[in-house]
C-alpha cells in the first residue's frame, strides 16, 4: 500500500466499515427522498461524516473533499435551509457512487480515478452558492473578529489535532464574548469552558481554564477543540448558556494551518506524528483532558460491537474444534484412570470434565453464531439499485423487503449477492410492465417487486417476486426450439412449468443488453449454475398476467455444515445431514437386483443402493469389478461379508438413494476445509474436515454423488445389456 495511509491489517476492517456505510447510505437516501424524517437525515449525515473522516485518515483528498461538500449540503437540509428534491437525491446518489469508486481506489491502491470537481460544483449549486470547493472551505474560515482572537497552537497541539482529524473528529474554534453587563460574566465563560470540556477535547484556550477559574480574563474566550460534533451541533450545544453577548463556532478541519503562530502560517508542513509525541505527554496544560474520558455522545449500536476478521473467527472455530477433541480424550483418560482414584477424586474430576465439556460446547456455539450475519447486508443495496433501474427504464416499481433479519453465515453472504441482483434486475427488466401497459391490463400503475428471506430446514430461502406479466411459455418454447435445445414435438409435450423452466437453459435468456447499472446482463443459466455450485437451487414460478417469482435456496452456511459421519472401511466420510433421511441396518436378504443394480426393498418402496467405496473408483476396471461382484452377489443371493453394514438413505430434490457404509459414527457439525490444489476439483467431494481424533473426513457432495451414481448406473446397465 503506497498511495494511501492504511496498513494491511487495518484495511479489512476499514473497507468493511466503509462498505457498510455506503450501503446504509443507499438505503437511507431512498428513504430520505420518500419521507425525509430527521432520523434518516441524521444517519445519512453521520455516514457521510464518518466517510469524510476515513478518507482523510487514509489520505484520499478527492474523497474527503467530496464527502465534505455533501456534508455541508446535508447540514443545510438539517438546518431547514434547504429541502430534499429529486435533483438533490440524484446528486447525493452520485456522490455515494463516486465515494464507492474512491473506496475502490484505496482498495486497489491506485491514485484517484475520477474527477469530481463538476459533481462538487453540483453539490455547491444545490447549496445556493455556485462556488467551488476552495471558496467553500473559505466559507468555513472564521470571521475577522474571531481571527484576531485566534489562539495559536504549538507543535504538540498539532500532533493532537492531526490524530483527531485522522480519526474523523472535527477541528472547531469557539469564540465567545461575555455580556459584561450581566451578573457574573467571567463565570459564564467558565461555564462555557466547562461545557466544552464535556463535549470536546480542548486543545488550547485563551484564557486557560485555570485562569478563568481564578477570575482572570478580559471577558472573552477563544478555544480550539476537537470533537465528533459538527459546527452546528456544537453551536446548538453552547447556545443554552446565558449571558453570552456573542459567540461563534468555526470549522477549521480543512484549514488547521490558520492556528499556526502568525510568522509561520504560510505553507507550513504539519509536524509528523511521532516526532513530538514525547513532549506532548509532559505538557499537561495543552492536553487538558484525555480523550477516553470524553463523554460518549453516540449511542448507536456500533458501540456495543467489536469488529474482527473472518479469518480470526475461522481460527477460533478450528480451535474450538480442537477443544472438542481434547474433551473427548479427557473422557477417555478419565475412564482409564478412574480405578486409581478414590470416590471423592473421581467425583471432582468427573464434575470438572463435565463442566469443561459444556463450556466447550457453548464456545463452539457462540463462535458459530458470531459468524452469522443478517442478510440485510445484501438487501440494503437493493432500494438504490431498484430506483436506479426504474429511472433508466422508465418504470415505476415499489420494492418491498421482508425477512432481512434472517441470519446466514458470512460465507453465504459473500456468494448470494450476485444471483439475487440478477434476479431482481430480471424482474424489473422482463417482468414488470410499463405504466401504460399496466393500466391497460387493469393493474395498479406502480409495479411491485418483493424480496423476502427466510430460513427453512438448514437453508436460506430468498424469493424475488414481481407482479408483472409473467413468463410467456410459448415465447420460451419457440426460442428453445429455434436454438435447437428441444424439438418441436418435445415442446408440445411440455407443461407450463416445464416450459418456463427452460429459461435456465443456456443461451435462452441472454438477450439483456449491456447496461450501465450492473454491467453485462448474464443469462439465467449462469445464475442457476452458480447457485448449484454452492449446493443450492433456484426455481421459477409464474402465472401469466400476474407475475413471476424466483426462489433461491442455499445452505445457511458454506463453511460449517451439520453432517452424519460414517465409516467405510477405515475411511471416514461426512454426509450433509439435511440430505440424510434414514439410517437402517442392512439386511442382505432384502437386497434385490433390479437390472443388475442393488436395491433395498423397504416399507413397500424400492431404494436404489450404491456403495461409496465402489462409486469413487472412476476407472472402468473398477466398474467391471463392481459388476462382477454384483453378479456374484446376485448368484449368492446375499453378500455375506456385508453383515453388520448399514444403509444411509439420502434424498436430494426428488431422488432417493441408499448408501452402504460400514457403520455410522454420529452427527457432527464440521468445518469445511478446501482440499487444496491439485485436488480441489475432485468430483463428488465438497471438501474435507478434521475429526476429533485427528483423522480427516471427506465431505460428500450429495448432488454430485447422485449424478455419479446415475452415470455409473447407465454405464453399468449398458454393459450388462451388451453382455
Amino acid at each position, binding site marked *: 500500500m503506497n498511495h494511501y495511509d492504511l496498513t494491511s491489517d487495518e484495511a479489512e476492517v476499514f473497507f468493511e466499515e466503509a462498505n457498510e456505510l455506503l450501503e446504509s447510505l443507499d438505503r437511507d437516501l431512498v428513504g430520505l427522498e420518500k419521507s425525509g424524517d430527521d432520523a434518516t437525515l441524521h444517519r445519512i449525515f453521520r455516514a457521510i461524516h464518518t466517510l469524510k473522516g476515513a478518507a482523510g485518515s487514509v489520505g484520499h483528498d478527492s474523497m474527503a473533499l467530496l464527502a465534505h461538500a455533501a456534508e455541508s449540503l446535508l447540514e443545510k437540509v438539517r438546518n431547514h435551509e434547504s429541502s430534499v428534491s429529486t435533483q438533490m437525491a440524484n446528486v447525493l446518489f452520485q456522490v455515494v457512487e463516486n465515494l464507492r469508486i474512491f473506496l475502490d481506489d484505496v482498495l486497489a491502491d491506485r491514485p484517484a480515478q475520477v474527477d469530481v470537481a463538476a459533481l462538487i460544483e453540483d453539490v455547491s449549486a444545490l447549496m445556493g452558492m455556485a462556488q467551488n470547493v476552495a471558496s467553500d472551505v473559505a466559507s468555513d474560515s472564521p470571521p475577522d473578529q474571531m481571527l484576531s482572537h485566534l489562539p495559536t497552537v504549538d507543535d504538540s497541539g498539532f500532533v493532537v489535532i492531526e490524530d483527531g482529524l485522522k480519526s474523523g473528529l472535527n477541528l472547531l474554534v469557539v469564540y465567545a464574548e461575555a455580556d459584561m453587563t450581566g451578573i457574573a460574566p467571567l463565570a459564564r465563560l467558565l461555564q462555557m469552558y466547562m461545557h466544552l470540556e464535556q463535549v470536546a477535547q480542548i486543545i488550547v484556550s485563551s484564557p486557560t481554564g485555570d485562569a478563568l477559574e481564578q477570575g482572570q480574563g478580559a471577558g472573552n474566550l477563544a478555544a480550539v477543540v476537537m470533537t465528533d460534533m459538527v459546527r452546528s451541533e456544537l453551536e446548538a450545544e453552547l447556545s443554552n448558556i446565558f449571558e453570552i453577548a456573542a459567540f461563534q463556532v468555526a470549522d477549521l478541519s480543512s484549514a488547521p494551518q490558520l492556528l499556526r503562530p502568525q510568522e509561520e502560517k504560510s505553507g507550513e508542513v504539519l509536524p509528523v506524528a511521532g516526532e513530538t509525541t514525547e513532549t506532548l505527554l509532559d505538557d499537561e496544560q495543552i492536553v487538558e483532558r484525555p480523550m477516553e474520558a470524553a463523554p460518549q455522545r453516540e449511542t448507536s449500536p456500533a458501540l456495543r460491537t467489536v469488529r474482527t476478521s473472518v479469518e480470526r473467527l475461522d481460527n477460533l472455530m*478450528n480451535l474450538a474444534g*480442537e477443544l472438542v477433541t481434547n474433551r473427548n480424550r479427557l473422557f477417555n483418560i478419565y475412564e482409564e484412570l478412574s480405578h486409581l482414584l478414590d470416590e471423592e477424586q473421581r467425583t471432582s474430576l468427573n464434575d470438572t470434565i463435565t463442566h469443561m465439556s459444556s463450556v466447550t460446547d457453548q464456545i463452539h456455539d457462540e463462535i458459530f453464531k458470531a459468524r452469522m450475519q443478517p442478510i440485510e447486508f445484501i438487501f440494503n443495496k437493493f432500494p438504490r439499485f431498484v430506483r436506479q433501474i426504474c429511472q433508466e427504464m422508465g418504470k415505476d416499481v415499489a420494492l418491498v423487503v421482508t425477512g432481512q433479519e434472517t441470519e446466514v453465515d458470512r460465507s453465504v453472504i459473500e456468494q448470494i449477492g450476485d444471483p439475487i441482483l440478477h434476479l431482481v434486475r430480471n424482474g424489473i427488466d422482463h417482468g414488470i410492465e410499463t405504466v401504460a401497459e399496466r393500466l391497460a391490463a387493469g393493474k395498479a400503475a406502480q409495479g411491485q417487486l418483493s424480496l423476502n428471506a427466510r430460513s427453512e430446514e438448514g437453508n436460506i430461502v430468498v424469493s424475488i417476486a414481481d407482479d408483472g406479466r409473467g413468463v410467456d411459455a410459448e415465447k420460451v418454447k419457440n426460442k428453445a426450439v429455434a436454438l435447437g435445445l428441444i424439438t418441436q414435438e418435445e415442446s408440445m409435450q411440455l407443461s407450463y412449468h416445464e416450459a418456463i423452466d427452460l429459461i435456465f437453459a443456456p443461451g435462452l435468456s441472454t438477450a439483456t443488453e449491456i447496461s450501465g447499472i450492473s454491467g453485462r446482463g448474464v443469462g439465467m443459466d449462469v445464475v442457476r449454475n452458480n447457485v448449484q455450485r454452492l449446493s443450492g437451487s433456484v426455481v421459477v414460478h409464474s402465472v401469466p398476467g400476474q407475475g413471476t417469482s424466483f426462489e433461491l435456496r442455499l445452505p445457511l452456511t458454506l463453511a460449517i455444515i451439520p453432517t452424519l459421519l460414517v465409516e467405510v472401511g477405515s*475411511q471416514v466420510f461426512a454426509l450433509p445431514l439435511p440430505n440424510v433421511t434414514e439410517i437402517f441396518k442392512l439386511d442382505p436378504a432384502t437386497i434385490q437386483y433390479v437390472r443388475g443394480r442393488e436395491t433395498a426393498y423397504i416399507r413397500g418402496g424400492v431404494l436404489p443402493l450404491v456403495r461409496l467405496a465402489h462409486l*469413487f*473408483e*472412476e476407472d472402468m476396471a473398477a466398474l467391471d469389478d463392481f459388476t462382477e461382484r454384483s453378479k456374484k452377489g446376485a448368484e449368492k443371493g446375499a453378500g455375506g461379508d456385508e453383515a453388520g453394514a448399514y444403509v444411509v438413505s439420502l434424498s436430494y430434490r426428488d431422488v432417493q438413494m441408499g448408501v452402504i457404509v460400514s457403520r455410522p459414527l454420529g452427527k457432527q457439525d464440521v468445518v469445511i*476445509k*478446501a*482440499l*487444496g*490444489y*491439485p*485436488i*480441489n*476439483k*475432485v*468430483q*463428488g*467431494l465438497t471438501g*474435507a474436515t*478434521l475429526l476429533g481424533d*485427528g*483423522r*480427516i473426513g*471427506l465431505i460428500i457432495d450429495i448432488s454430485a454423488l447422485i449424478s455419479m451414481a446415475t452415470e455409473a448406473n447407465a454405464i453399468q446397465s449398458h454393459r450388462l445389456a451388451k453382455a
Partner: protein
Amino acid sequence: MPVALHPTGSGASRRELIPGRAAQMKEAEPQEHLVIFTLGNECYGVDIGDVWEINTMQEITRVPRAPHFIEGVINLRGEIVPVMDLRKRLGLPARPADQKSRIMVTKTAHNRLGLIVDSVREVLKLPASLIKPTAELGTLIDESFVWGVAHKDEQLIVLIDLQGLFDADEHEALDTMEAV
C-alpha cells in the same frame, strides 16, 4: 519431528530471494540454495524457497477420484495438505515408503503440497557455475521440469523447477475442465 526450514512462517519465494542473490554477486559467485533429495539412485535438488518443511511419513487419507499421483491428504497440525507421490508424478516406478521416506512440504501458488520422496539428503549451497543446462545430460524424468544439472562430489544432481511442475498440473486440470 518436522524440520522447519522457515520457522518464522514466511517461506521465502524464489522472487524474494533475488535481492539476496544480487547482493551476493558483489562479494562472490552467486549460489543456489537447494534441498537435495533422492528418488531411487538419482539425486534431485529443489529451491529451498519452495520447501516449507520436511516430515517423516505419516498416515495419509486417500482421496477417491484424485489424480493417480495424489496419495491423499494429511493433517499437518490442523491444516489439510494434499500429498503427491513425486515418483508417480515424474513417471518413475512406484515403490512402497520405508523408514527413509519423507514428506517434503512445499508451497504452491495456492496452498501447501506434500511431496513423497525416497529420502532427503541435505541442504546445500551450490555455486551457479557448477550448474549446467539440461541438454548435456539425460535423466529418467520428464525434462520439461528440469532446469539444470550439477555435479557435486561425483554425484549428479538434477535440479527441478517445482513451480513449473505445479503450473503444468494446473493447466492440465483446467484443460480437462474445459473439455467437460
